[in-house]
């Protein structure tokens, strides 16, 4: 794993190598994320151990106590809920635990905080975020030190330094930090309160009180019982009936609570008229459910992120404040951060670790700065996902169509051709193999095959018509070679339905393309007779249409196919050979060629097939054609035409 470094020294202070050597335990059922985080940790020079199961991780932690500095855990795991693991670790090992999840909703993050997570990372976790996890370790240790030492050894510079480090945090943190800046002013009030409290000699060196969730709830229920106005520390204390709790503890806690509520109502006032509901809701939630059900709060009314941030911070900061007020007042005042930061500015305190908060209460109210972070981020940091959520596949497929429409037709045709054991086709198929899958993919994107006919450049008409019939025949022949065989085979296999769906009927162009391909080839080769017979047979079987038109003399090279009367003839041919268009799966290579007007040629050619004499006559044409359509022919030169026909 990572290079070994002295972890012990790393935690004590900011050595040159720190945070290298941080011993991290990563728990995630998702092997992909696990591997990625492992690699990132290695890059950060941590000593990382990975685990896919929470139970295994717990055992590992128990067996090797003191062998890990921080735990990274996924929230959703099959064998044990991430939060449960979090609780266990917090209770048994008191290690900082960082949660990870793809879920960035506020409620999820809040749940993490509630269970005591030090941090909450949103997947995909970035390396920069991993580089910062050491702060939680340091913070915890410093808190513990502070607890024990109970001295003002902390210097502002250290906190500031850490603050600067944390400014390298993700942008979501920065966003949240700004969000929470508002409550800063109020925190000064608290500081004054604390000062007042500190003047009270009775509170100077009291043992620390951990305002756990349960304790706080007891407190809140007592307050509710008495009524906020009438709630006096003495009465609250009586109602709570907690041994060891002093009136002073309660008093300071109450003070903070009051300020907190006031601030909440004040913030809410800025937003909308929900403020009145908020304090009441909070209290009722706290007392009733015994849980800081921010979710319910949010549901109660539109609780803006700022309020929520403040809320979280407050809820979390409350106990800390209390403790501080009872304990290190002096230190508090000395530290520039002071309580004002430790409160709502939890979110802001990214750079200002919640040092004041002793690790004892870390479980329940850990300095989870990420709360506000994630909240704000949950609100807005992932707009891309929202925007692209509907990223329409069809659109994308269209793009692909646009870029690969040539291939589309190729593959559609290929798809059908695959059934035919054609050497040539196989050759071509191999060529197109790579494109097939994505194209099939495209096909499923409801790509209308009809566009394939669009592939035939409209200019082809012009060029063909401009050229002598021979020229057009040339082109036809070149394609037709393979097409003929395919064609006949296709017809025999009755792939009508398949093709029919592809080539939606009525598309003259498409058919023209097909015809053109097949016909010329039949004409050109004398050895085609056999295949020609097949072709004619197939024609009959398919169409059951009118018999082929009588062969037209091919002597007239100038206009061998009566191009001028092409239209009507086209119709005839098309009808006769209608099945061709429907049933053939002609390789796109044919389609790509300009064939439009070759329909008529096609029919003419076909006719000529009947008599070998005509076929022979065609040969010269074919030769000529080959010359003219050189680029096209070149494509298929690899095709063994003769073998095709002998099959």
């Amino acid at each position, binding site marked *: 794993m990572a290079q070994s470094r002295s972890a012990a020294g790393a935690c004590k202070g900011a050595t040159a190598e720190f945070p290298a050597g941080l011993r991290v335990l990563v728990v995630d*059922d*998702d092997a992909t*994320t696990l591997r990625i985080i492992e*690699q990132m940790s290695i890059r950060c020079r941590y000593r990382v151990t990975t685990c896919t199961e929470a139970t295994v991780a717990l055992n590992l932690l128990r067996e090797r106590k003191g062998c890990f500095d921080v735990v990274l855990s996924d929230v959703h795991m099959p064998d044990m809920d991430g939060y449960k693991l979090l609780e266990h670790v917090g209770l048994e090992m008191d290690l900082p635990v960082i949660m990870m999840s*793809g879920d960035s909703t506020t409620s999820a993050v809040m749940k993490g905080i509630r269970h005591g997570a030090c941090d909450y990372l949103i997947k*995909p976790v970035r390396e920069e975020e991993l580089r910062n996890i050491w702060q939680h370790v340091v913070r915890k240790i410093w808190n513990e030190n502070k607890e024990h030492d109970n001295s003002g050894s902390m210097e502002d510079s250290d906190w500031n330094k850490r603050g600067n480090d944390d400014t390298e945090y993700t942008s979501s943190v920065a966003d949240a930090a700004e969000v929470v800046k508002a409550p800063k002013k109020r925190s000064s009030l608290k500081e004054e309160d604390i000062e007042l409290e500190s003047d009270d000699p009775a509170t100077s060196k009291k043992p620390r009180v951990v305002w756990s969730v349960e304790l706080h709830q007891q407190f809140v229920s007592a307050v509710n019982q008495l009524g906020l106005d009438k709630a006096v520390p003495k009465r609250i204390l009586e109602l709570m009936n907690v041994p060891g709790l002093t009136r002073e503890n309660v008093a300071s806690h109450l003070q903070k609570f009051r300020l907190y509520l006031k601030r909440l109502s004040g913030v809410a006032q800025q937003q909308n008229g929900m403020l009145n509901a908020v304090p009441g809701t909070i209290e009722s939630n706290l007392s009733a459910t015994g849980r800081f059900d921010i979710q319910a709060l949010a549901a109660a009314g539109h609780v803006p992120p700022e309020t929520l941030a403040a809320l979280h911070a407050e809820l979390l900061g409350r106990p800390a404040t209390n403790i501080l007020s009872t304990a290190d007042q002096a230190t508090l005042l000395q530290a520039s951060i002071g309580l004002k930061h430790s409160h709502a500015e939890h979110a802001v305190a990214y750079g200002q670790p919640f040092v004041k908060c002793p690790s004892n209460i870390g479980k329940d109210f850990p300095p989870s700065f990420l709360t506000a972070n994630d909240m704000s981020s949950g609100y807005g940091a992932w707009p891309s996902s929202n925007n*692209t959520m509907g*990223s329409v596949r069809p659109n994308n497929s269209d793009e692909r169509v646009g870029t690969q429409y040539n291939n589309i037709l190729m593959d559609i045709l290929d798809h059908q051709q695959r059934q035919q054991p054609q050497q040539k086709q196989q050759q071509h198929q191999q060529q197109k193999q*790579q494109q097939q899958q*994505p194209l099939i993919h495209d096909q499923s994107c409801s790509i209308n095959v009809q566009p394939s006919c669009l592939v035939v450049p409209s200019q082809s008409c012009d060029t063909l018509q401009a050229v002598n019939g021979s020229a057009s025949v040339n082109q036809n022949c070149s394609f037709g070679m393979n097409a003929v065989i395919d064609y006949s085979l296709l017809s025999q296999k009755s792939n009508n339905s398949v093709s029919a769906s592809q080539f939606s009927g009525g598309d003259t162009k498409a058919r023209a393309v097909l015809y053109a391909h097949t016909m010329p080839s039949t004409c050109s080769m004398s050895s085609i007779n056999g295949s020609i017979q097949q072709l004619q047979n197939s024609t009959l079987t398919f169409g059951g249409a009118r018999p082929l038109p009588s062969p037209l003399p091919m002597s007239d090279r100038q206009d061998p196919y009566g191009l001028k009367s092409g239209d009507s003839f086209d119709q005839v041919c098309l009808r006769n050979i209608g099945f061709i268009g429907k049933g053939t799966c002609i390789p796109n290579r044919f389609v790509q060629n300009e064939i439009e007007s070759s329909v008529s040629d096609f029919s003419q050619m076909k006719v000529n097939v009947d008599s070998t004499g005509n076929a022979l006559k065609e040969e010269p044409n074919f030769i000529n054609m080959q010359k003219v359509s050189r680029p096209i022919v070149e494509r298929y030169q690899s095709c063994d035409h003769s073998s095709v026909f002998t099959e």
Partner: protein
Amino acid sequence: MLGLGADLLWADMNRLLAFLFHQGVLDEQFLQLQQLQDETSPNFVSEVVNIYFHESEKLLTNLRASLMEREFSDYKKMGNHLNQFMGSSSSIGAKRVRNVCVAFRAAAEQNNRAGCLRALEMLEHEYCYLKNKLHELFQIEQQRALAAGVRYPVQD
């Protein structure tokens, strides 16, 4: 000559990557993966992607199997599968796959079986496309490595 081939392949690879980014198939997280690859882990990206394929196929099979059940009702379990799929997809930067997962999850939350089926179809589709494209990418990468290797046969 061979070096030229390597360069051409490099260009091919970049072109394919750019295409995939443009299409939204991949996002910057994939770049992060590439950056994590170094001498100590020279095949990191393909390793992670293979893990992803392996896991994803299992998940997809599970999803399809559970949706095809006649007495299907465990949307929650499907939601868990989806969460994992989402997490892994976002970890490697498979943006489109992840987005379909989000839609799928929404349908599952509404107990909309038809919607789930549709989403599953789309998910399988996107996944297949991603897989093919990534295979293509790795093929080019392999060829490039070969071509580069031949050019500089003496390597440390």
